[in-house]
């Protein structure tokens, strides 16, 4: 266990060398408690930082050197933003004193309370926090495997896939058709497909006005639907066609060679095809035994501790968080609430019932933002909406209101990026 040993040695050196003041808050229990966080995305990095501020020694395991943020990646696809604006690094997190372990966690031994890393080394923990995000289910939609994703990008994990979809859209001729398959619930970022459709329509209207956009959906309704559809009619009349589940929108098969999506009622060939496939909690959650048959992770809504494996907490997209959607905003809020609970548990205190907020902003056009908000608290074993709170932006609002929300959307992204990675 070279990792664990190194960390312990470091800690000892620090205790001897550092000024007493720096440690005056740290109790004996804390100093010897080991918390490991897997996943340096919005959920994991937030949780690691909060726990470190509370005085704990933290190891943060992240497989990628650069984190490419998904929020606003739809603007990259539409040519409104460089991919560099999405790239965040854990350097400041590391400088702040968190032991960042740049490796993939491959296994968890819940009995031994140990995380095993790709190079064979391991990290022992008293509490483990998993925030691995999603994995694409390449087994769920016939014909949609990794090879197909290189032809029909999902772009649902930002990075190479985002750039690929951007290139395809750029290369498309005027008069072409962009076809999107949208998944059934639950999935990462419920308004995301419709934000993407909006911004792609914005690009097409500006650069290739004879083109069209077809959304084949496995659902009968979607997040902020009234707002999206009203805006489409206003901004992109006749350009976006949405086919619901009950109108035969569900894609049942993918023919990547023919760039075609198959439904019960027909075949839809696109010039650019974007498949947003079914998803599940990231692989490590399956391996650790914290995911149930749905592929997602049931948790206690107060502590975020797994219902299946004690000592392991799950936050962010991977968790079953009741009414809270799978968003970066939620992952960040859960990261903080989970850190408070873990700190309490390690100090032997009963954690208080948390209250969380989510707000998902979407851009329908660069100067047209809409949002859905909610406040959540534990009820009947799940995180439930506080009644009377939350909801979407008003359906009837002047352009100045939409423009203001577009500004707040960007401000939110800057604020959260700075809070988590700055």
């Amino acid at each position, binding site marked *: 266990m070279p990792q664990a040993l190194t960390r312990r040695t470091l800690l000892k050196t620090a*205790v*001897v060398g550092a000024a*007493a003041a720096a*440690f*005056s*808050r*740290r*109790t*004996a229990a804390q*100093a*010897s408690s080991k918390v490991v966080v897997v996943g340096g995305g919005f959920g994991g990095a937030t949780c690691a930082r*909060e726990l470190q501020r509370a005085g704990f020694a933290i190891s943060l395991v992240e497989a990628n050197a650069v984190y490419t943020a998904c929020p606003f990646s739809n603007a990259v696809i539409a040519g409104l933003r460089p991919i560099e604006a999405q790239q965040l690094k854990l350097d400041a997190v590391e400088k702040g004193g968190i032991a960042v372990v740049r490796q993939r966690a491959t296994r968890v031994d819940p009995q031994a309370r140990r995380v095993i890393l790709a190079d064979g080394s391991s990290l022992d923990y008293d509490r483990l926090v998993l925030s691995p995000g999603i994995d694409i289910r390449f087994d769920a939609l016939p014909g949609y495997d990794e090879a197909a994703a290189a032809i029909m990008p999902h772009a649902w994990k930002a990075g190479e896939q985002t750039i690929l979809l951007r290139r395809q859209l750029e290369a498309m001729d005027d008069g072409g058709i962009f076809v999107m398959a949208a998944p059934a619930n639950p999935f990462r970022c419920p308004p995301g497909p419709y934000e993407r459709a909006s911004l792609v329509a914005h690009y097409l209207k500006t650069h290739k006005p004879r083109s069209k956009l077809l959304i084949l959906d496995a659902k009968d309704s979607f997040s902020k639907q009234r707002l999206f559809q009203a805006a489409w009619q206003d901004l992109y009349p006749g350009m976006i066609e949405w086919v619901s589940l009950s109108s035969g929108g569900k894609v049942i098969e993918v023919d990547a060679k023919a760039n075609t999506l198959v439904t019960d009622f027909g075949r839809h060939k696109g010039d650019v095809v974007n498949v947003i496939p079914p998803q599940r909690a990231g692989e490590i959650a399956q391996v650790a035994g914290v995911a149930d048959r749905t592929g997602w992770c049931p948790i206690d809504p107060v502590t975020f501790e797994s219902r299946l494996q004690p000592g392991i907490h799950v936050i962010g997209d991977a968790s079953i968080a009741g009414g809270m959607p799978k968003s970066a*905003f939620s992952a*960040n*809020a859960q990261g*903080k*609430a989970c850190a*408070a609970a873990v700190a309490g548990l390690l100090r032997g205190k009963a954690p*208080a*019932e*948390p*209250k*969380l*907020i989510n*707000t998902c902003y979407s851009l329908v056009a660069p100067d047209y933002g809409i*949002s859905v*908000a*909610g*406040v959540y*608290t534990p009820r009947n074993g799940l995180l439930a909406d*506080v009644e*009377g*709170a*939350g*909801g979407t*932006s008003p359906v009837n609002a002047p352009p100045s*209101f939409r423009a*203001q*929300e577009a*500004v*707040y959307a960007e*401000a*939110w992204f*800057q*604020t*959260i990026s*700075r*809070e988590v990675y700055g």
Partner: protein
Amino acid sequence: MAVATMTVTVPAMAQNVAPPGATACSGCHGPGISDAVVPPLHGRPPGEIVGAMQDFRTGQRPATVMDRIAKGFTDEETRAIASWLSQQP
């Protein structure tokens, strides 16, 4: 061990523990940004925050999103959040 002896002098952490909901505000109200689009709340007088939250809740004060958020918090919760926020650097 040195750490154990220090335990004796550990100050009470109670006032540092954020009340329910308090940490979710900083997702939009980032602290320490002077030219922020959404104003920082850390270090603000608690009365200001409580008053604003009440006005957002009743609709007296126009808002894009705070009306929807403020409705999720009772007066008591808001007071606890405001008091905590006012003590943050």
